[in-house]
């Protein structure tokens, strides 16, 4: 009977109430379960066996203790029976969550469970103390002390399980990471909201990485690249001034020559004019530069769809189709016209009209790319501008304003991550003006990198060759073995580090890693990107095992295709270490 009773009160209300346990929202944060995983996992079986063992041992202990007086009385069975029931109740309590502690999910959070357990306990007490039921179940009333003893003894099972949960906590690491992330955001926000920003502190913080997916990185870069002054109160005025200035630049540089000649009529400027002072001649000359920019911008970050998507803030002048403004890409992409041919049929005398309704697109350099090109470069609907077109415009304006330097292939790779950061800023007020902000930050960045892109500086100390030599000297100091190996295998730095140094490692890693690297790079800016050299040395040093055992061909291949999945944090750590030890 007692066994039957246990069955009823355990499989009844308490087990049912476990089914209506309130939802644990942390389940969503865990990775999805594999479909092929067994429903009865090993863990579940272990839990079952453990609880069974503990309950059995506990109950038998009680029974043994009661049996020591030598006689089998109903008291023994009652004690054992009650203990077993209480064990079950506490077991049910700990079963409410497989991973969380009871006090985490709240002792009283499941009302049904409380009600069920209460009813079960009441039932149990009734069975023990109510005489008719005593007769049915052959139990005996036990004293209050004994009852308390059971109540105090049975939580053993609860303790066992809670302790087990402590050891099974796999997500502890992730929880602390989450807390750390929140803490970093708080620190940055506090720093960035003060009226005068402490640049040194910001640099230290930024060196350890800006938190992603918040507006913090975009704001930090604007400050580190000297676009925003440290006095926060002056920002609004400064920003509106700069943005107006940028719009002025656009109007100056992207206007069509045909409109201007209406004022002066002395000598007509015509499109076929080759004279150097002709605005048409200048227009076509800059089209050559534009062609290069266009080609480069179309394939910015090809593995991201971001640059091919349309921007929410296209250039107003172009969208309103103001006279003289046209989308830059239209200047160089020529298309053939929609043609209708009308001919009189000689046989019937009727007029036949044929038309080709699908005009094909081709580039101005003469190559005819047919339908396949249409699919490659999907043209957005009229009135839309893709992000790469915005970048194209920024680079075009930059090249026109810096005609000494013009545009060199590679600048698009540097502006890409900057524009991406600004245009994905969650704050709308910053996102709206991403184009103008990118222009200024890019200009500021280029003042440091300018020498890398100009041919005349190539052989000077500041040019790219000089930097590669500095890198090599640093490598000699930090890792003599690898340096000697490169020397022996004739691995000149031009073979691999040229791209690293000119493009600030933007081509070596995936975009999120590049952004992280640039956080540290910009935060170290006052030393003219010396940190970049340390980063390159770190990259080489971390691959030293493979390099030392590889042939020349293998090493070149490894260095030129540096594994993009390499752990960027390790590289940063190593570079910081190297910087501390060796000075340039």
């Amino acid at each position, binding site marked *: 009977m007692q066994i039957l009773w246990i069955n009823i009160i355990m499989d009844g209300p308490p087990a049912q109430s476990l089914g209506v346990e309130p939802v644990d929202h942390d389940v969503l944060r865990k990775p999805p379960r594999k479909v092929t995983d067994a429903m009865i996992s090993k863990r579940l079986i272990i839990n079952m066996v453990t609880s069974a063992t503990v309950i059995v041992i506990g109950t038998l202990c009680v029974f043994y203790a009661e049996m020591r007086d030598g006689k089998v009385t109903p008291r023994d069975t009652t004690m054992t029976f009650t203990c077993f029931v209480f064990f079950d109740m506490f077991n049910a309590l700990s079963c409410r969550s497989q991973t969380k502690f009871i006090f985490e999910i709240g002792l009283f959070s499941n009302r049904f469970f409380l009600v069920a357990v209460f009813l079960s306990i009441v039932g149990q007490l009734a069975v023990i103390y109510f005489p008719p039921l005593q007769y049915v179940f052959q139990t005996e009333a036990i004293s209050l002390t004994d009852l308390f003893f059971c109540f105090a003894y049975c939580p053993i099972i609860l303790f066992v399980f809670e302790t087990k949960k402590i050891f099974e906590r796999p997500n502890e690491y992730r929880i602390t990471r989450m807390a750390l992330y929140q803490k970093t955001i708080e620190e940055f926000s506090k720093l960035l909201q003060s009226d005068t920003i402490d640049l040194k502190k910001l640099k230290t913080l930024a060196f350890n990485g800006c938190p992603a997916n918040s507006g913090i990185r975009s704001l930090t870069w604007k400050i580190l690249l000297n676009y925003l002054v440290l006095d926060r109160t002056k920002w609004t005025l400064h920003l509106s001034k700069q943005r107006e200035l940028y719009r002025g630049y656009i109007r100056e540089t992207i206007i069509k020559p045909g409109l201007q000649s209406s004022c002066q009529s002395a000598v007509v400027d015509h*499109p076929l004019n080759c004279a150097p002072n002709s605005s048409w001649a200048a227009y076509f000359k800059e089209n050559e530069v534009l062609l290069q920019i266009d080609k480069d911008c179309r394939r910015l970050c090809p593995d991201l769809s971001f640059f091919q998507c349309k921007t929410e803030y296209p250039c107003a002048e172009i969208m309103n189709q103001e006279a003289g403004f046209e989308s830059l890409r239209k200047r160089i992409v020529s298309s053939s*016209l929609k043609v*209708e041919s009308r001919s009189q049929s000689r046989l019937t005398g009727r007029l036949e009209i044929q038309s080709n309704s699908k005009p094909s697109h081709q580039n101005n350099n003469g190559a005819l790319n047919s339908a396949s090109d249409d699919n490659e470069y999907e043209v957005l609907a009229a009135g839309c501008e893709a992000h790469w077109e915005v970048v194209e415009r920024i680079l075009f304006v930059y090249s026109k304003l810096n005609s000494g330097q013009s545009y060199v292939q590679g600048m698009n790779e540097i502006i890409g991550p900057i524009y991406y950061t600004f245009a994905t800023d969650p704050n709308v007020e910053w996102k709206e003006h991403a184009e103008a902000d990118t222009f200024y930050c890019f200009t500021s960045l280029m003042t440091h990198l300018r020498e890398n892109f100009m041919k005349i500086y190539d052989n000077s100390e500041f040019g790219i060759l000089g930097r590669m030599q500095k890198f090599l000297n640093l490598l000699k100091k930090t890792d003599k073995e690898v340096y000697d190996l490169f020397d022996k295998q004739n691995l000149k730095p031009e073979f691999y580090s040229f791209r690293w140094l000119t493009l600030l490692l933007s081509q070596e890693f995936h975009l999120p890693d590049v952004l992280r690297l640039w956080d540290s790079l910009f935060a170290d800016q006052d030393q003219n990107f010396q940190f970049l050299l340390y980063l390159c040395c770190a990259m080489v040093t971390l691959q030293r095992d493979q390099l030392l055992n590889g042939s020349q061909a293998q090493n070149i291949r490894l260095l030129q295709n540096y594994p993009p999945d390499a752990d960027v944090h390790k590289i940063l750590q190593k570079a910081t270490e190297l910087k501390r030890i060796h000075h340039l």
Partner: protein
Amino acid sequence: MLVLVLGDLHIPYRVSGLPHEFRKLLTPGRIQHILCTGNLCTKETVDYLKTLTADVHIVRGDFDDNPNFVDQKVVTVGQFRIGLCHGHQIVPWGDIESLRMLQRQMDVDILITGHTHKFEAFERDNKFFINPGSATGAYNALNSSTTPSFVLMDIQQASLTLYVYQLINEKFTVERLEYRKA
């Protein structure tokens, strides 16, 4: 968008080639489309035009070697519908009323014809009529000496700017005309 309009070259039957001045002016890379009124006459001239730009539209003239050109073409540039026809089909040659009839038939905003070897550009009823003349200055049935001329159209959506290049006394002159579609 730059569109070159020329025709009535008659190379090599009446003239040996384009005038030197014009050849110097016409370089690839600037012009995007070519509309040719016809009478080129040979394939070599067509090839030469194709070196300037890939998009060349030609209609049949009465002296063209290639019989497969169409008689009339209508191209759409920006907001303009441009009709192209050689003009020998219109009798009397160059008659304004007949041209207007043809324009109404083709339902175009700009009608380009040739054959008279005389440059003309005028507007009637908000429709434009352009005759680029002969780019080589070839003789005509009615006129033994003509001024070499051709036309470059700059079309921006709804406005048209015409640059007329004429060779007068060994020197080329440029004139600028503007039209706007109503």
